[in-house]
């Protein structure tokens, strides 16, 4: 792995890493009570790039993803150790307000979880509480733009006042994606965003991810090797809480270094 031999102090991290590095995680350990869910993970996520997390079910992909915007804080028994930096700032520092962090690091969850409010309010909620819209007009624009980018505008444009929970599973997931990008985060964490989508919607979301790459850094968890290969530039393979292999997507899929990676992507474990 390319980070293990890096010096640990903050200044050197910023100077040593390429200017493209957005998130740097070092020696991250996560425990759920006594369960050791993430074991000593070092990873460096690049800006304006898509990073894919792959691995068998229960290996800790979601857990690690949730560390990156401190969603694990909400789980009482969850304990995170190690150091995670965004733009060189330790996000687990006492001075950091997790709410501010989450505005900067948006998230799409594994299970679609729209608010039981109207479609419009689902999208408008984030911009409203962050004061992103100065007028009703602004807000309407944000809602439309986000829904368009979430590849769901055409389906819902006539029913914006209907409840978001009344949509189909796949529509709900795209609504959640639209909701996440409405707050203009710098990093977008997506936990299996396409698991409930048909190929067409998947394609639209993948296009969206590709487009988001121009401005944001995107981390996506996926169970689809093809998807990882299609959308990501970097891929991380997790296995039983360990980060087994991390590198260029092409290299991981064509020439994996670790036998576990090899057997996983060729479909022999998982």
């Amino acid at each position: 792995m390319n980070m293990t031999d890096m010096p640990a102090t903050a200044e050197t991290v910023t100077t040593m890493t390429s200017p493209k590095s957005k998130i740097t995680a070092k020696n991250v350990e996560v425990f759920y009570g006594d369960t050791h869910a993430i074991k000593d993970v070092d990873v460096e996520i690049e800006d304006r790039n898509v990073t894919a997390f792959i691995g068998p079910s229960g290996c800790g992909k979601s857990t690690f993803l949730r560390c990156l915007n401190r969603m694990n804080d909400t789980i009482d028994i969850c304990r995170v150790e190690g150091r995670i930096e965004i733009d060189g700032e330790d996000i687990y520092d006492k001075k950091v307000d997790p709410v501010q962090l989450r505005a900067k690091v948006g998230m799409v969850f594994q299970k679609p979880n729209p608010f039981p409010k109207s479609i419009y309010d689902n999208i408008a909620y984030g911009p409203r509480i962050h004061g992103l819209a100065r007028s009703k007009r602004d807000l309407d624009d944000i809602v439309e733009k986000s829904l368009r980018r979430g590849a769901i505008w055409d389906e819902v444009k006539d029913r914006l006042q209907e409840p978001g929970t009344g949509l189909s599973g796949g529509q709900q997931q795209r609504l959640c994606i639209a909701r996440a990008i409405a707050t203009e985060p710098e990093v977008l964490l997506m936990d299996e965003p396409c698991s409930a989508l048909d190929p067409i919607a998947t394609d639209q979301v993948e296009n969206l991810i590709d487009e988001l790459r121009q401005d944001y850094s995107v981390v996506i968890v996926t169970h689809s090797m093809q998807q990882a290969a299609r959308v990501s530039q970097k891929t991380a393979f997790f296995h039983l809480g360990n980060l087994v292999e991390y590198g260029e997507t092409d290299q991981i899929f064509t020439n994996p270094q670790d036998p576990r990676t090899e057997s996983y992507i060729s479909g022999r474990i998982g």
Partner: protein
Amino acid sequence: MTDATASTPAAPASGRRQSISLFRQDAHTKRRNAAETRFKAYGLTAVLVGLFFLIVLFGSIISNGLPAFTRTVVELELTLTQEQYEEAESKLLKTGAYRDFFIAAFDRELEERGVEVEYDAAALERILGKIGGNLREFYTANEDRLGQPVDFELSTSSRIDGYFNGRLKREDVRDSRFLMSTDLDLADELYAAGIMKSDFNWNFITGADSGVDNPGGAGIGASVVGSFFMMIVVLVLSLPIGVAASIYLEEFAPKNRWTDLIEVNISNLAAVPSIVFGILGLAVFIQFAGLPQSAPLVGGLVLTLMTLPTIIISTRASLKSVPPSIRDAALGVGASKMQAVFHHVLPLAMPGILTGTIIGLAQALGETAPLLLIGMVGFVARGYPDGFVSGFTEANSAMPAQIYTWAARADASFYEKAWGGIIILLLFLMTMNIIAIVLRRRFERRW
């Protein structure tokens, strides 16, 4: 079920189940369906038994309580001049003089209507109570009405009242100084002549308690007002405190030994007998804090203590039932914990919170034991409070306390009033429940 032991021996050894027609139920399916039918029958029986008792309950309440809503009165127009008043007041037996005036007017009325009855003053007093005393009481209080015709409405004694509403049977009457069987003949004749009549007893709904000697004049109105003010206190205190405490405990407090301890103790509090809260209220609110006795404010405070655990427990349960994914969703778009709770969790928990609150309030409304200790039971409320503030601080009774007081009185007519009071209490409760259901619908229909 014991299906496994009774598996059909016909199963072929090959392991594959023999295919049988779908039109014929196999033994297994039959047994399962029979079990289901049996279970449904049990359930239906339980519901029917419950319904039966409900009907018995309501039937007996209504049949016992309805007479309280009618009363038998004698209406008479009477004019007392200034001279007659002075003359009566100068006598030694003043009420006797008033009685004579009344009888004179009564005779005139009978004559006008062409009714011929034989009666004596004593019989009239047994039927109408202390005529002279009542008349004197009225005129000494309203001297300005002297010289003008006044419409008097005199309620009959509780026995005559009972005779007309079916409580008292003629066969059961044994002659006594309270009632002679001849009085009933007189009453029947007066009734037939239209001088005596039964009408709706508005006074029962609007009036105040009357004291042991006058069941006809007793009303529940004042104690309804007392209960109302108590409920205001309970609602205003227990809803915000209970909801705030639950939100804190459920959403913000760290889960540790202390919060566990608090949780256990809240559950314990919910199980504490209400009379314990009563004696606590007596010690703290009346003896220590010096608040007035029998006041709805104190009653409300005591009932608040009683209601809080109920509200906290149900609010926490409904907060718990809001799926955590909603909180994640809110936090995920950068809402603070408080925003997540107030914008998303609380609206979803609202129906449950309302249900819990109404259940708590309904319990509080019907609670009698704690009121016993703070002096609201047995207190005779003689009128309405004369303002909003004094509604809280002036001594008053409450519905269940009033009902208890009536039930404890000797006169059978009060027993009837107690049942009538229960009807009013139930109406009150039903109104509250309907409000709760409507509110809950409103909150649920939003999504």
